[in-house]
């Protein structure tokens, strides 16, 4: 995908405008995102980067504004009227005096928080606001709205946004300690009701007022609705918002967080505008949904063609590799990102996860050092440090740092999950469950937290309960054998053997889907480095055991044989690996167990020769030697006896009969 020069200039203008507009509305992250993207465009011929800004050649105009975007005349007029007040409000916001900022434009008599905080605000919003308006002072509410009516959308957005932020801040403050009694769900953002009431009025009034919507207020309303768990409406408003102003990345991000599955994404997709932002959104959301297909990679390549140096897009690429467990590739990308932009801390927590899984402790230490030098009070930094301590098995310290990350940002997903892992290591299952639960509450798409929850419940021997979580995890990561194995194991534990077998078989399928897996973030390196065509012997063995429980001995034996076969790997030809290199997994405890089982099975079936062979192999491998030797002795005895029996059959026939009678 390549753009014409005109399109490129157009895009530049749009992004530039986006950065400015977002800054004007104090949406700093979105502004940062837009500006980053803007600079990652290759410098075009038109912007005259060769000439210096101050040289007489340039005509005093900034070189990167080829043409201004058309403005809404009404809004422009309103903005001009209140420009002084706007400046005041903006500076207040920048000084983090949110309430003061809001008070510049809004009267102080806004309806305050709902009476029943635990109820979902979305449904209550209308009734509460209306109820209040009716019961209390209708004239006042009216007055409130009228005062809002005369504001430009920019000022209104800034005021309401400041109110929202102030509410969030207060909510965080009320939550007190991480995992304390006040933390999690108890406190709410008390400003939501007021904001929602104003916006609702605004939107009902919109069609008649003759004003053009700009997309910002829709974005804010979407946020408020999403906070109130009114997700369908929120999605609608976000879609409206991105239609009206596509370059607000925040709106896209919020939208993405509302999309829980691929189906939903496909459902939303047609109603989105057709532009580059939608494209990027699609990539981003797919990444968040762990959809790292060839197609997504291709899309990413195309977008990268336009923004060749975008760190954001590169990070997406790295994360895609990370999801497919291609850690080397992901590590390489992150490493290069680090070199090009050493002060960048965004997504370093993901990088640290990668390093953790790869066991690259020195590099993780260096990363932690680097991040701490840049800013030690960023949640990402704290996560990196926490990961480092976790790798050093200093779990208390790790928890301390994850806690710090959460104090800095309560919605920082990876810290919740990682803290859950640490609590599991420290055998503090209740804290672990709470941490995982919070992670899931923040982002329902975090399979690691679901999986962690399942694991923790398994530790507590609550298998049917754990099953639910493992299924959620497996749904999120259908191609991760580990998830399916967990599901299978749970099924086995609750005596649903057939379901278990099916789950394990899914695991086998998923395992063969990935070319090269390398464990997961749980640190267990089982199944690492399985070559193509190799099936996980552990899974096979588990399937066999389940069949054994179903008394389907034939199937069981077949799977045992299959397990054993993985030692050698597949026959040459189909998966022609390097000749001479062993393709299989070699002797592992699992295959040895399978071998022992088979030996006993053969012994029971009377196939002493094969049983003997297997048992001797066991002795050679040096695994389960005691059992194997005992078995060998038994087999010898049986063989001897059979020989004896064969020889003395005739002789002893009579006496045996006598004895039997006796």
């Amino acid at each position, binding site marked *: 995908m390549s753009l014409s020069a005109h399109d490129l200039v157009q895009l530049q203008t749009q992004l530039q405008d986006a950065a400015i507009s977002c800054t004007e509305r104090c949406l700093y992250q979105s502004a940062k995102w837009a500006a980053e993207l803007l600079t990652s465009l290759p410098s075009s011929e038109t912007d005259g980067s060769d000439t210096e800004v101050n040289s007489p050649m340039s005509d005093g105009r900034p070189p990167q504004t080829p043409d201004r975007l058309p403005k809404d005349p009404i809004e422009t007029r309103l903005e001009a009227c209140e420009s002084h007040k706007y400046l005041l409000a903006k500076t207040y916001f920048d000084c983090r005096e949110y309430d003061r900022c809001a008070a510049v434009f809004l009267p102080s008599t806004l309806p305050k928080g709902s009476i029943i905080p635990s109820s979902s605000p979305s449904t209550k919003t209308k009734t509460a606001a209306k109820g209040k308006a009716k019961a209390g002072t209708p004239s006042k509410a009216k007055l409130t709205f009228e005062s809002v009516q005369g504001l430009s959308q920019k000022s209104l957005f800034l005021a309401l946004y400041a109110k929202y932020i102030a509410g969030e801040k207060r909510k965080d403050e009320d939550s007190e300690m991480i995992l304390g009694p006040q933390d999690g769900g108890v406190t709410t953002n008390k400003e939501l009701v007021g904001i929602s009431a104003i916006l609702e009025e605004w939107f009902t009034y919109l069609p008649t007022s003759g004003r053009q919507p700009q997309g910002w207020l829709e974005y804010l309303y979407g946020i408020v609705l999403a906070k109130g768990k009114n997700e369908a409406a929120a999605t609608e408003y976000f879609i409206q918002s991105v239609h009206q102003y596509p370059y607000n990345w925040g709106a896209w991000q919020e939208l993405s967080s509302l999309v829980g599955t691929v189906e939903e994404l496909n459902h939303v997709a047609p109603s989105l505008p057709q532009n580059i932002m939608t494209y990027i959104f699609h990539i981003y959301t797919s990444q968040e949904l762990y959809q790292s297909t060839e197609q997504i990679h291709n899309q990413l390549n195309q977008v990268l063609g336009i923004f060749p140096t975008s760190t954001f897009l590169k990070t997406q690429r790295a994360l895609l590799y990370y999801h497919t467990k291609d850690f080397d590739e992901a590590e390489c990308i992150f*490493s290069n990102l*680090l*070199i090009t932009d*050493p*002060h960048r801390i965004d997504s370093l927590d993901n990088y640290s996860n990668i390093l953790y899984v790869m066991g690259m*402790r*020195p*590099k*993780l*230490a*260096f990363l*932690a*050092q*680097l991040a*701490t*030098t*840049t800013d*030690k009070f960023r949640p990402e930094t704290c996560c990196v*440090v926490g990961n*480092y*301590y976790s790798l*050093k098995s*200093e779990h208390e*310290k790790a928890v301390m*740092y994850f806690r710090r990350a959460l104090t800095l940002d309560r919605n920082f997903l990876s810290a919740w999950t990682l803290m859950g892992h640490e609590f599991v290591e420290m055998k503090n299952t209740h804290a672990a469950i709470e941490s995982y639960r919070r992670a899931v509450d923040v982002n329902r798409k975090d399979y690691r937290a679901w999986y962690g929850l399942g694991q923790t419940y398994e530790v507590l021997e609550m298998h049917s309960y754990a099953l639910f979580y493992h299924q959620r995890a497996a749904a999120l990561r259908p191609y991760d054998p580990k998830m399916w194995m967990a599901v299978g194991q749970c099924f086995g534990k609750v005596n649903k053997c057939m379901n278990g077998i099916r789950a394990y078989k899914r695991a086998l399928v998923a395992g063969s889907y990935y070319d090269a897996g390398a464990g997961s973030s749980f640190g267990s390196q089982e199944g690492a480095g399985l070559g193509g065509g190799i099936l996980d012997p552990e899974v096979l063995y588990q399937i066999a055991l389940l069949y054994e429980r179903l008394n389907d001995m034939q199937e069981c034996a077949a799977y045992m044989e299959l397990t054993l076969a993985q030692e050698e790997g597949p026959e040459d030809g189909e998966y022609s690996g390097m000749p001479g290199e062993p393709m299989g997994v070699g002797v592992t405890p699992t295959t040895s167990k399978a071998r022992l089982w088979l030996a006993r099975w053969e012994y029971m079936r009377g196939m002493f020769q094969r049983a003997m062979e297997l048992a001797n192999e066991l002795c050679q491998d040096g695994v389960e030697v005691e059992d194997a030797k005992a078995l060998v002795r038994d087999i010898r005895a049986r063989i001897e006896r059979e020989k004896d029996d064969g020889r003395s059959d005739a002789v002893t026939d009579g006496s045996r009969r006598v004895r039997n009678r006796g």
Partner: protein
Amino acid sequence: MAISRYLTPQKISLLVLVNLYCDSVPTSSATIPILSFILSHLVPLVSSNARSTHSAVYQNVGFSIQAFEDVLLGHASTMPGRTVLDVFLRRMWEINSFDALHDLFSNLGELLMRTREDAEREAAAGVVHPVDQIFLSRTSPLGAFIRRARLEFTRLQFHDAMKLWSAFISYRAPTAQWTRRIAPLASTGVDAIVADMGMKENDPLFEVAYGHLEGEDITEQVISADDFDRMLEFQLDQLQRLGCRVPDEMRKQLRTMLGPSGVVLRQSHLVKFFDAWKAGDYTSAFDNLHRYYDYAMQTREKIHYQYALLHMAILQADFGCFGESIAAINETITTARENQDMTCLNFSLSWLNHLTKAYPKELKRAGYIGMLGSEREGLLFLKSKAKETKMYNLLGATLLNEAKLCLATGESIPRAFEYMYQASHLNIRENINIYGSQMLLESTLYSRLGIVHISSVHCELLLHCYKGSAPIDEQIRAIGRCAFIASQSGRYDDALALLESIPLSTHRSLKFHQYIYHCTGLIKLRRAIRRTNWAAVDQLLLKLTPDSSTDPELTFLLTEARLSSLIQRGRHPEAFSLIESLAQELKDTNADILQRVSMLITKANLFAKVGNAERGFSVALRAASIAFKARLMPSLWQAIGLLANILNAIGEFAAAGKLLDAVIPQSLEHGDLSLCATLYAFQADCSMGLAGQDDPSTSNGQRRRAVNVNKAEYYIDRARECYKRVEDIEGECEQLCKKAILAKLRGDEQLAEEWAQNYLATWNAARERIGEEVV
């Protein structure tokens, strides 16, 4: 930026060295030097008996990496062809990433003695240790060090650990060029990870991670709070033991170290307090003392309260506020009793005792009534207390005080010696380091006995052998005493040079400065009196007016000098009234017997001067008898001289001659030339008197007269010689005059004229010199 609590790059390097030692890298011959090097940096400075001499050699806490080279370079390791330094540096540079530093600390546990569980686990895991691996006991100094280091590292926050790492990098940096062997290791730069990523210096990534290393002040990085504690403790030790001030450059260093760190340690207030105190800065001394104890309270060390009061009392007394001082010390005693702190109690009692003796007048004025009954009882009480609580320091000091008391009251000298030797024995047995005061006392004792030689030897002994450990106060006193002895034999310039040789830094302490100033002034005053330079005398007397803060002993000497100046200038009534009042005062305050005898002698001398020697007979006789009883030999000789003079006056020349014959040899030995001159002059008078008694009519008588006159002339010459050496102009002129008269008596007019000329010449020369001096 906060400083670290304990860990520093030096400590890391020491850990590396301990690692080497445990791996038996150094050869056995190198083991002891290396171990002592490590320990010298770990063991606390508090000087126990065994190490007291060692602690004087103070180890710099912020030692550079160079120190390691100095120690390690000379020793071979068990690896052939490599010095320990090579191996050490190799290990140092193998710490090539932050993670490696973590590993260093997490592997420290391996160095400790295996517990049984460890052993079992290792046996199960099949770990085999090399035979020469050394395991450290957990309680050994090295074991404790390792455990502490491990603990402190665990306590570190991540960014503090990072700070430590950067400090370590800059600390290690100079060694990169030291040997060829580590070149490949060092070439990867400070961090292997960065090198792996293909980064070099000046790349942006490198700059972010290590860019701050460049311009940073290293000193603040390499000092930990623990080191600071050690350092300040050392400073305090020095301040308290020697009573000096913090040297200028040290102060600057301390300020640069403490300043930017923002950490204020309690001890630093104490150091400031002592410094201000010694500098004579009363207000800031108080300020700092209060600040220190306020912070001490904060850490709930209630025990400090009585010590705060004690310090306050000493400080008040030092600045002459005796009323406040008494109040403070009384409260100290009460508090110490309440808290059952015998050490503090006994010390305060001892100090109070010292104070009453040193400043009786001022204390009386401040309304102090003896707390311990009589002095002797007080000392006995203290002695028994000290024995009870085994406070040998106090016991030694009390014994010396008893000896002093013996001397002051003129009791038997052997007893004083006995006490002194007891103290000395204690000193050696318990190593309580009271050599300074003991030497000074001994020197005083011998000078009272008139054996100046031994007296000065003791002073020099103190100065040469115990300079490091004796308080500066005592050193200055010793120097002062040496100077006085020199001035007695007329070596004024030597004396002044001796005083001037005291290092300038000592003058920074107000008390010392005053003492030295007064000593110098006194010697100059004495010389001026002898030279009859009255302008200078007036000037000096004005400057040297003693006040309550001056040393009592010096006050007395100054008054004595003032008296002699009055007498010499013929202002006899003034002198008489001064003597009377002084004698009364001395009697009231129960002063040292030496001073009282000296007053008697001066009085007798005054009578002699006004030509009424007989009136001083009883006074002189009393002085002589007291001096004899108390073995105050120089006073005795003076008194005898005066007695002889009286005898001369009443014509008992033979008896006078006998008396003088008896004392002159001893006084010659004593070396006080002024005394000798006087005695010789009296002897000459006595000879002349004898000559006058001889009957000139008989040939025998004539011969005897000639002999006596010759004798007289001989004695006059001796006296003149002595006077000349002490630069006593009047004395010298008097003798010249006498010589002229003798010549005239003999009828040798020309010779008489010559002597008269000589007289004039000497007198004029003296005048001229005074004129020059004034100019």
